[in-house]
């Protein structure tokens, strides 16, 4: 039998895990990416608020022998004719998996581009995260405002993690009495899912963080944020998470993209709407779960199983570590049919988040699959909800 050609667009967390999970006896695997380097994005948080290094690795070092990697930006995916068009040429496929993540687009909010260029952010690049760290260190007092500029945020705990780590830094720099910390969000409460909000909102309030809910950023002008709902916040130092969209790639048919360029994907079998031979995983999809590495990981495994003839179905599992500052943490754990668990904060949770950084690169190769499987079973949301939900 001839090998099936699998083209994976995007060599981020999802794309690499998928490539490494396919058996090369049956599949000829090619990864296309516009960059040859993978950045460990969760570390942007610690670069911006603690001045730490962001680990990076070359993609060819992360993939198993036999997998082809091409540094070649993708411009168009023709699902009807099973072809991918890149800057360098074209690739025909038997199966395609799109794992292009998100891209930020500050230009969609008037005034945000200038703010982002000047003050940076902690979601888009190492340089931007370092800019946040620099600004926080030269800050002498005033109002710091932090929040997400659009309803979609990669890694939903990250806005609150950012404001809690800012508080910790300001406190350690003894600037607390000269600083007002304002957190804004388009949702009715600090964290969108209520059970975990009940865990984190009291902590934010206790640390003196002012929370502006229903604040959907409309525009920024003269050091003031204005919301669609008609409120305003004046600031001295802004830390704003830009809006996220899908990658700038054309699709045939165009109808597989939603208004924000995310790919309309079946939330159980990860197939792109209307196609049996095309899949999307990770942040690039429109499925109703958090945009997080854990999802990209689990979805990659689902697609690998389906391609290799095993029946499988994604259950919408999320499992996002949540840093609460001062060495404590919680987790956001839920699934399609289980509400998020009100998981109590602990030092162990924080330790697990720090461990994630240590094992990340080897986990891409599948080295720790059995530990992950054990861990996911151990933290099953049905079990945890029985224990922690009232």
């Amino acid at each position, binding site marked *: 039998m001839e090998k099936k050609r699998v083209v994976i667009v995007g060599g981020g967390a999802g794309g690499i895990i998928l490539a490494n999970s396919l058996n090369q006896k049956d599949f000829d695997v090619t990864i296309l990416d516009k960059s040859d380097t993978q950045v460990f994005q969760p570390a942007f948080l610690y670069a911006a608020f603690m001045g730490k290094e962001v680990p990076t690795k070359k993609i060819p070092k992360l993939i198993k022998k036999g997998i082809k990697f091409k540094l070649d930006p993708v411009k168009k995916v023709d699902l009807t004719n099973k072809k991918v068009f890149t800057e360098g040429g074209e690739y025909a496929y038997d199966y395609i998996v799109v794992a292009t993540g998100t891209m930020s687009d500050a230009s969609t909010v008037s005034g945000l581009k200038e703010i982002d260029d000047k003050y940076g952010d902690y979601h888009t690049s190492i340089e931007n995260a370092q800019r946040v760290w620099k600004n926080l260190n030269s800050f002498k007092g005033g109002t710091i405002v932090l929040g997400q500029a659009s309803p979609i945020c990669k890694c939903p705990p990250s806005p609150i993690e950012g404001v809690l780590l800012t508080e910790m830094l300001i406190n350690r720099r003894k600037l607390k009495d000269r600083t007002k910390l304002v957190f804004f969000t388009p949702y009715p409460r600090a964290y969108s*899912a209520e059970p975990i909000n009940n865990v984190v909102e009291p902590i934010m309030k206790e640390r003196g963080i002012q929370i502006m809910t229903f604040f959907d950023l409309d525009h920024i002008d003269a050091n003031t944020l204005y919301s669609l709902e008609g409120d305003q916040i004046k600031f001295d130092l802004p830390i704003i998470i830009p809006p996220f969209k899908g990658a700038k790639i054309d699709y045939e048919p165009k109808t597989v993209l939603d*208004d924000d360029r995310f790919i309309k994907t079946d*939330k159980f079998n990860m197939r792109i709407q209307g196609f049996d031979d095309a899949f999307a995983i990770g942040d690039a999809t429109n499925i*109703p779960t958090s945009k997080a590495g854990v999802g990209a990981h689990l979805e990659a495994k689902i697609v690998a199983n389906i391609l290799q003839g095993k029946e499988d179905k994604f259950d919408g599992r*999320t499992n996002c570590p949540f840093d609460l500052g001062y060495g404590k943490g919680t987790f956001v754990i839920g*699934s*399609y*049919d289980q509400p*998020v668990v009100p998981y109590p904060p602990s030092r162990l949770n924080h330790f697990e988040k720090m461990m994630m950084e240590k094992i990340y690169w080897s986990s891409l190769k599948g080295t720790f699959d059995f530990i992950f499987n054990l861990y996911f079973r151990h933290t099953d949301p049905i079990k945890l909800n029985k224990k922690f939900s009232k």
Partner: protein
Amino acid sequence: MSMEENKIFVDSRGSSCPGPIVDLAKAYRNSKVGDTIEIWATDKGIKNDVTAWAQKTGNQVLSIEDQPDKVVVIIKILKR
């Protein structure tokens, strides 16, 4: 001024995190005055959230219907 009035449909079933309120906020952002937004959700929290949201934003909840397998909410956009 003539504006085409749209019906926006949002299937938020199965969303527990980040939750249906995120899908509502997203639909609101992409809407125009006169549009209606219909949301399907399995997370019952949507009922309180949508009421609070409409009050804050000055929009109108046309109906909230509890069905056996989901909640169906219909909203009319009066303000943007």
